[in-house]
Structures are given as structure tokens and as C-alpha cells.
């Protein structure tokens, strides 16, 4: 089994993500470094969602994946809306 980082992280298709996906944090992995918020093109405070343990519910979120890809600790991942993993 080969691991292709991109295919595993972005295993939902773009359209699928836009329609039904959201970014979900895994708070125990988070150390509040703020790289996610720093790289959000819309300036959303992704880190604050991770602290609160909430999915990024802001309607402005593009699910562009910048925060998911740049988090050095794998805190953030895409999930279908309503799913916790």
C-alpha cells in the first residue's frame, strides 16, 4: 500500500468538499501555534475553532485546504458535514 500524502489528505473530490465537506479539528493534537489562521486566505481564526473543539462552521470558509495542509501536527482534516472524524 503506497501512501500518497495528497491523495489521502484530499480524498474527497473538490466539488464534494465544497458541497458537503468541512474542516474539523482534533483538539488534543493542537498547540495553538496559529499557522492555520495565519495561512487562511480569508483571515478566519481557525485556531480559535480548534481551541473550542468546533468544526470551522463559518460560511466564508472555502474549504481550500490551506489550514489542513499547513498544520504541522495534523490537527485539521476534512470530514463530511455531521461526521466527527
Amino acid at each position, binding site marked *: *500500500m503506497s*501512501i500518497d500524502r495528497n491523495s489521502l489528505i484530499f480524498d474527497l473530490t473538490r466539488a464534494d468538499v465544497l458541497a458537503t465537506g468541512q474542516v474539523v479539528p*482534533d483538539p488534543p*493534537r493542537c*498547540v495553538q*501555534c496559529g499557522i492555520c489562521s495565519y495561512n487562511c486566505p480569508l483571515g478566519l481564526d481557525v485556531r480559535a475553532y480548534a*481551541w473550542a473543539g468546533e468544526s470551522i462552521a463559518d460560511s466564508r470558509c472555502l474549504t481550500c485546504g490551506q489550514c489542513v495542509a499547513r498544520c504541522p*501536527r*495534523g490537527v485539521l482534516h476534512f470530514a463530511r458535514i455531521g461526521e466527527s472524524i
Partner: protein
Amino acid sequence: MSTDYVIVGSGVAGIAAAETLRAHVPGATITLISEDPAGFYSRPGLAYYLTGVIPDKQLFPQSAEALRALNLKWIQARVERIDTQACCLVLADKRRVPYDRLLLATGARAAAPDFPGGELDGVVTLDTYDDARRLVQRARRGTHAVVVGGGITAVELAEGLHARGCHVHYLLRGARYWANLLDAEESELIEGRLRADGIEIHYHTRIRQAVGTGGRLTAVETESGTQIPCKILAVAIGTRPRLELARTAGLTTDRGILADQFLKTNVPNIFAAGDVAQVYDPLTGQATLDTLWPTARAHGVVAAMNMAGTPMIYQRTVAANVTLLAGLPTTIIGVLGGANDDDLVAIARGNSETWLATVPTWVVVERHDVNRIRLMLGDRAINGALIIGDQTLARPIQRLIDAQADITAIRADLLAPGADVLALLHRFWTEWEAAHGPVS
């Protein structure tokens, strides 16, 4: 009369406690005392500031307004001692602050250099925002810097100084990096990446002394007599809980402040949380220290609930840390036995004592270029794991370890020569999750 809550420390344990208290006793007077003028910031994030991934202002998770909304009485001062008879704190400027319930969240700080010359200008440790800022100012392009120590912080310092243009020498006392946690291949993986970056690793090298002129560092002299000229010597040889206040007040201490499952110390109305607290675990019958951000946060919450009069037990979870080691995402979970590490004199940063406990285990390794999973298998369950590179299976494995899931069904297959460990784990996890519910 309302209760006076006082918290010493503006780290994550102190802030988590303040938030929890404010939510559960809305009208209470909450005083937070910290000597750090920078207040609350991401201490692990200092490494990313050092490498230039984020600017320093990004290190502050909470805006000034968010902190104001907590309505804390914030005092920036050093607490000099606790008067347990009068139930009050004495500050360095002799002010007295009374308390009804006190939380000590004083954290840990880097162990001081254990060689002569440690006081020279240029010898540094990395604990605070100010330390990081000063280090960035010193780290001019072309500056020679020596890093000594082990664990995550030493590598972060080496990478940070390298990223700032310094020529970095990394001194290891033994034959390889982080020998008490990593296996030989994992050490080589990390060392290889550091070398590829241009960091010079010196093995079997101990510092005899730091050498300077006019109070300024000029070189490091090794025990073999070699001098390595340098202007910066960054020391990361472990951390020590800040116990001074507790000790002088007569609290029971060991390596940390001893606290029970409610985070209570032996003195009534005094609690301890975070890096400074050595917390009793009824499962093992031992009290352990952690230097982990999520653990410190969880301690802060539980201590605050108990201070507020809502009994809550601290449920120790399996120690886990996620970090970047030489640019590779790495998750370390549970028990990973190992030998002694000469580069550390105390517990390493982002480390937990439970990882170092040795239990009889089999080791299974799956490798994919720089993706690597090491599992420590007990008789029935997975005891620990180290996941380098791809982190897809990190959460599932952590859940299986946390739950001590019975893996006897796949144990023999995992240990078979040439086993497809990832596929086996993935299949097991899918079935296990279907039976036990998704990760919460």
C-alpha cells in the same frame, strides 16, 4: 462574601483554569498573576517563529479583547512566596494578594547548562517569548551556533538557527539522536535530514566548558579538547518544574508538586496544574510528570472545576505528542521503551515519562520512504506507537491505544514476516470503529 480565586501562571494551564472558572462561577473574583510580560502565547509555537514560518505576533492565541472578556484581575509580577497560614501570596514588590483557592500553574523551565561558562552572554535556552525574540536578534546570517541537548527542543533550535542563516553545529553526547525514544533507523532518518540541511552533527561530544572573553561567548570546548568557535550556544538538556514557591510553602514535592486526581496538593485550597504538577494515576499507582501542552490544558480545566466546587477527576489519557522532527510530522503515543539518553538530564520537552517505561513488547515496523509507523505490541493491545510522515493512521492508532483495544485477532498477522501492517491496521480499525463508534 464571594470566593477569591488566584492563579499563578499565564501559560495554557493557567488560562484554561481561568476560562473554566469564569464559565462556572461567573461572578467570582479571579486574579491571575504572571511574571511573564508577554502573557499567554503558544510556547510550542516559538519553534515556528524561530524558523520564520509565522511572525511573532501570531503566537498569541487570544486577542486582548478576548482576554478582557474573561474579566480577570491580571497582575504582572513575580510571586515570591505563599503564606499558607494567612492564605495570601507575597509578591516580589511585597504586595500581598489574599486567596481562598489557589492554583499553582508555574510550569517548567529549561535546565541550566551543566558545564562551566553557562553564564556567558551568548549561552541561551528557549522557554519564553522574550528568549525567542532575543535569539532571533542574535542569529545573524553566517553566525556560528552550537546546539547541545536532545529531544524536540534541541532539534527545533538547530533548525531554527539554521533557518535564520546560522552555521549550526549539533553536539550529541552519544552515538545517535534521542536514543531513549527513537530506534536506530528513526534516529538516522532525523539525523540524515538535519545533515542534508547543512547542520553539522558531532557525535560522542561533550562540552567541557563554554569559553568567552569579556563575558561574551567565543567558543565551546569539548571534552576531547577541540574548540568550536561560536557566538551562540543553545542548550536544551531537559526541563525542570518550577517548584520554588511550593517547596518554600511546605507543599509536598517530588520531581513536581504532588497532586491527587483532583489536582489538589497536600495543603488545603491549593491546587497544581500543568508542567509543574506530578499527578497521581490510580491505574499505575504512580505520580507522573508531563511536559505537554494538551495535558497542561486538561489539568487547568480539572483543577478549576474542583476549585469551583464541582468535583472532577483528572482522567489521564495515553500520553501523546505530535511534532515536526526535522520537517517530518511525528506522533509519539504511549509506551515506547528505550535505553538511557545521555543528552538529557531530565525529562525532554514535548515528552512524557510514560513513553520511556519499558514493557515486554514486539516491534512492528512499516516503512514508506519517510513514512514510518512503529507499534509496540503487548500481548493483547497496542501499548505505544511512533508515526513519522503520513499521519493518516495516527488518530485511529491513538484511539486503539487509548481504549486498549483487543488486537489478538490480528496480532500474529502483524508479526508475520512481510506483513502489510498498514492494511491490517486499517481493516482492523474500520471494523473496530464500526463496533465502537467514531472518534469523538
